[in-house]
């Protein structure tokens, strides 16, 4: 019994040094050697491994898979409010442009990938759900005069996904609660009651995300999403002018505090001022006739 205690102490001290991430692996390495040399029994080894595994699995961040399911549910909820604009040509065009831009972000791959949908509303608005599901309103699409401006809109939303603004709005206590189920031993499935409890935590998390989206992120989050968008636009070859064009258009159209972007986003002129230093060093965007033609054709009915 004392031997086990000594080994437990040593494993714990090493864990403090190397961090919780490797505790599980380390514990298994130590106990495997211990069993091989006859120092401890396999039963004692399992006991140590189970304890170390439980400590090592501190859950303070949702996995990409978890983010994906939150994003889907948030998307479904938003679609129940705004309804889908079911235009195949426009949707495919939007996804081709958006998915192409996303490969230039610092988070190019999510669990299920980036996908773009159109909301059937005149309101000027867009939402970036966790995991890369992005919803853009018809009203916002109508503000775009060309593909570069639309690229600016989509790059800003991809910026929100990349910077994990939606997922970070979930209260830490809920994430910790979700993580408790990770301690269910391997080989055992969640009981119905546990799924029910977890779904309640899930619903609370969705409320956190929807509140943040509908009431607006912090001003700093919006400005950082703009900066991420500029980087994406430069890397992709579109150039960042389209974002500025879009902000100028919004400044003309938006009524501060009313609804949509006017309620949830900082003053467009403040946003332009913030990104202007980044624009000064970039080449001006060049529009081609082919690009304009495909843009107008794809969004003709919007």
């Amino acid at each position, binding site marked *: 019994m004392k031997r086990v205690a*000594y080994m437990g102490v040593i494993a714990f001290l090493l864990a403090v040094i190397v961090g919780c*991430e490797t505790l599980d692996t380390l514990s298994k390495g130590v106990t495997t*050697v211990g069993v091989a040399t006859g120092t401890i029994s396999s039963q004692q080894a399992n006991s140590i491994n189970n304890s170390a595994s439980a400590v090592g699995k501190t859950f303070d961040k949702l996995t990409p898979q978890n983010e994906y399911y939150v994003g889907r549910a948030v998307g479904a909820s938003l679609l129940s409010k705004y309804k889908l604009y079911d235009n195949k040509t426009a949707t495919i065009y939007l*996804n081709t442009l958006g998915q192409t831009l996303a490969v230039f972000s610092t988070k190019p791959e999510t669990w299920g990938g980036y996908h773009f949908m159109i909301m059937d509303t005149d309101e000027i608005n867009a939402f970036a759900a966790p995991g890369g599901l992005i919803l853009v309103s018809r009203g916002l699409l109508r503000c775009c005069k060309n593909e570069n401006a639309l690229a600016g809109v989509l790059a800003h939303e991809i910026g929100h996904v990349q910077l994990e603004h939606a997922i970070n709005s979930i209260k830490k206590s809920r994430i910790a609660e979700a993580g408790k189920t990770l301690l*269910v031993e391997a080989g055992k*499935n969640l009981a119905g009651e546990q799924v029910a409890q977890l779904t309640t935590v899930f619903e609370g998390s969705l409320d956190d995300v929807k509140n943040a989206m509908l009431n607006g992120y912090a001003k700093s989050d919006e400005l950082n999403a703009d900066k991420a968008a500029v980087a994406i636009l430069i890397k992709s070859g579109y150039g960042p002018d389209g974002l500025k064009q879009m902000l100028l258009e919004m400044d003309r159209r938006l009524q501060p505090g009313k609804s949509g972007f006017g309620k949830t986003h900082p003053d467009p002129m403040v946003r332009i001022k913030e990104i202007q230093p980044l624009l000064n060093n970039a080449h001006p965007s060049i529009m081609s006739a082919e690009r304009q033609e495909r843009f107008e054709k794809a969004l003709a009915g919007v």
Partner: protein
Amino acid sequence: MSRKKLLIGFSTLCVTAAMVCVAAQKEMNVQVKEVQIRSSASPFGSVVGTVKAGNALKINLEQDDWCNVTTGDGAITGWVRKSSLTTSKVQMSAGDNDVAGVSSTEMSQATKGFTKEVEVEYEKRNGDLKQYFAEIDKVEKIKTSPEEMLKFLKDGGIKAGAQ
């Protein structure tokens, strides 16, 4: 065997195990549903293989936001984005049957959190959302291949990275 000798011996074993641990850190796990391994460190590099979530990849080299990797069986070597990998274990949930390449044993060792079975329960509680989940399922089928992206950029007169 005296307690002192036992402690010294076991401490040595711990250090050995720790070294094994450090060596093991050269592997990372795929944390997205599916990752494409490319021939070059470019989003448009040709695809030389595909690896599903949860599989471990040996890290040969790290370059900017790319990693040169080799699959566990040594069959494929190429480049993947760092953001698609994690040092944490990636375990699958029982509801994610669409994730191929994961054994039934691994499936049973389920990570829980918010997964398919939670979505199913959520949908049961909110039956009115069913049609909207179906609309999302539909849009998730729209996937642009690297070749289509390159063509899209080229047709629009855009040279990626020209800025």
